[in-house]
């Protein structure tokens, strides 16, 4: 009797808990790789790159983009997601999103409520990177030729810039935690560029480039900072472990790396920077070279000073 009950229980658990009931096959899920959200005329426009193996449901073909672009719109983000799901005919799955992009209209619309909805209802992962663009859809329009899916390129651009120390890497968790702590958050910003021949399928070399960063203030997109200001901000906020520097001397243009960077505020609240310098190959700089590199570092810090103060 006991064995019969145990076997029956096991069978029930196998069918109920393993997903045999209320099943959604992997092929029936729209796996969103990149989600771009614009807010115009009171309407949310969600534009997404969905994973599609080889574009034909077959094996993954690295030579193809492996994604399809689908858009949905509505008065709420939920409506936009619903429309997107109806258009694609699949269940939306956002847990594997590589990037979230906020675009036009978020100077007035609230980003935090959108992020909360994406985290709680759409199960977006807390470590999903966040960025912005003047028009978010720009990133889904670009068909990047590099990477398994075209969503990987903008992500790798952000990661590379962050590792170089010139741009922030901000996740969904960072934005939500900063908002709860009453802090401002800097997120990387993209703009259209024309120097990427072969980078996208566009014949004119149209692509996107990192164009500095924007502050999220009280849940809305605030001031925009250019690349120089963003690098300065990263320096002052000790967001970078090392910073590449270019400087001029009589022998021409030289490069070095500032490392072990420490920033302290003086009595008047001005930041004081201390750093060590070395060449890209790890050798020590001459006194003259170090002096020039320090000047370059100070100049970079001055560029980011107003943004740094704004973010305090």
């Amino acid at each position, binding site marked *: 009797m006991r064995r019969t009950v145990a076997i029956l229980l096991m069978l029930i658990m196998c069918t*109920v*808990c393993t997903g045999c009931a*209320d099943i*959604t096959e992997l092929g029936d899920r729209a796996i969103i790789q990149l989600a771009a959200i614009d807010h115009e005329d009171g309407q949310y426009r969600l534009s997404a790159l969905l994973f599609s193996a080889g574009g034909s449901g077959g094996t993954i073909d690295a030579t193809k983009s492996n994604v399809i672009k689908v858009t949905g719109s509505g008065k709420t983000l939920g409506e936009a997601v619903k429309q997107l799901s109806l258009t694609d005919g699949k269940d939306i799955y956002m847990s594997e999103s590589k990037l979230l992009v906020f675009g036009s209209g978020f100077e007035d619309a609230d980003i935090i409520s959108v992020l909360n909805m994406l985290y709680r209802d759409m199960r977006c992962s*807390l470590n999903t990177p966040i960025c912005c663009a003047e028009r978010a859809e720009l990133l889904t329009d670009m068909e990047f030729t590099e990477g398994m899916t075209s969503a990987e390129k903008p992500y790798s651009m952000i990661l590379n810039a962050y590792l170089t120390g010139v741009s922030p890497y901000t996740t969904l968790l960072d934005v939500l935690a900063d908002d*709860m*702590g009453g802090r401002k958050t800097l997120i990387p910003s993209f703009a259209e560029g024309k120097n990427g021949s072969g980078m996208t399928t566009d014949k004119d070399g149209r692509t996107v480039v990192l164009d500095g960063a924007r502050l999220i203030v009280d849940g809305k997109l605030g001031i925009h900072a250019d690349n120089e200001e963003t690098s300065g901000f990263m320096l002052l906020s000790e967001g970078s472990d090392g910073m590449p520097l270019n400087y001029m001397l009589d022998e021409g243009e030289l490069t070095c790396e500032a490392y072990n960077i420490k920033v302290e505020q003086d009595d008047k609240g001005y930041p004081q920077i201390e750093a060590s310098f070395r060449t890209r190959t790890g050798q020590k700089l001459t006194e003259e070279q170090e002096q020039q590199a320090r000047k370059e570092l100070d100049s970079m810090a001055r560029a980011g000073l107003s943004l740094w103060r704004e973010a305090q």
Partner: protein
Amino acid sequence: MISRSQLFCVLLLSRLSAEIVFPQTGDFSIAGFASALSAEGICFLLALPVLLYSVGGRSVYGSIKSRSKVLGIISGSVSAVILLLMSLKTALYSAEFAQRTLLGGMSGAVMFVLVALFALYSAGKGAEGIARAGALILVAGAVITLVVVVADIPHIHVRELPGAELDDVFVRQVVERMMRCGEYLAFAALLPYVRPKEDSLGCGATGFLFALSSAAGTVLIMLFNIGVLGEFTASAEYPFIASAQLADIALFKRLDGFLGAIWSLAAAMRCALLLFSAYAVVRVVFERKKKTERRSI
């Protein structure tokens, strides 16, 4: 009969599972820590007489009953009801936890029934079965938790906690946390099942060690959550699972799934432990003494 180590393991598993599986009520402030430690301290003080009494390795309820039958029945009945309610609460919360973190498409009611059936079956296996399974699940839970903590090290930041007033929210948090500590009652109920040893300190030392580990575990989990999530800790429903979402070791991504599965099982085991403890108490206080026949030789 179970060993003292098994008793310690199953109690610690039960306590930690409540900390992870129960929905969050704390906040990102000093008051959150204060409420957790206050609840631990109050529970410890309330359980202190039982812990001291258990140094002798005797059954608490049996001793009360031997002195006063009425008092024994009352104390036993109250304890059994509290244990049953705690078991029910754990089943509800663990079903909700599993549904929200693992099986989103599944009905909460079905999940509750499954947890309840698991708990009933496990409780039916007796103290030995619960203790053996509990020790194994604790090891599995410790391994996966350690992996998550190690993977989350890059996300841990030292943060300054804001102070907070000790207001009614604080009191509510202390009370809510106290409602999680049913392990001392389970400890008292399981004493008759512990294998007697020559050193009489045995069971009492296990109880004191559990009290210390419970407080340390609670504080460490809170510190970890705050270190990883920062202010978002106050907003996350299950902060430990939210922290685990960030864990990423080579091919092992989304370790929160593993963590959720193991600790759901641990919570179901807690349910079984509390259920069996309620049965053990009832058995002791309502047990009739066997009549001994006197025969004249």
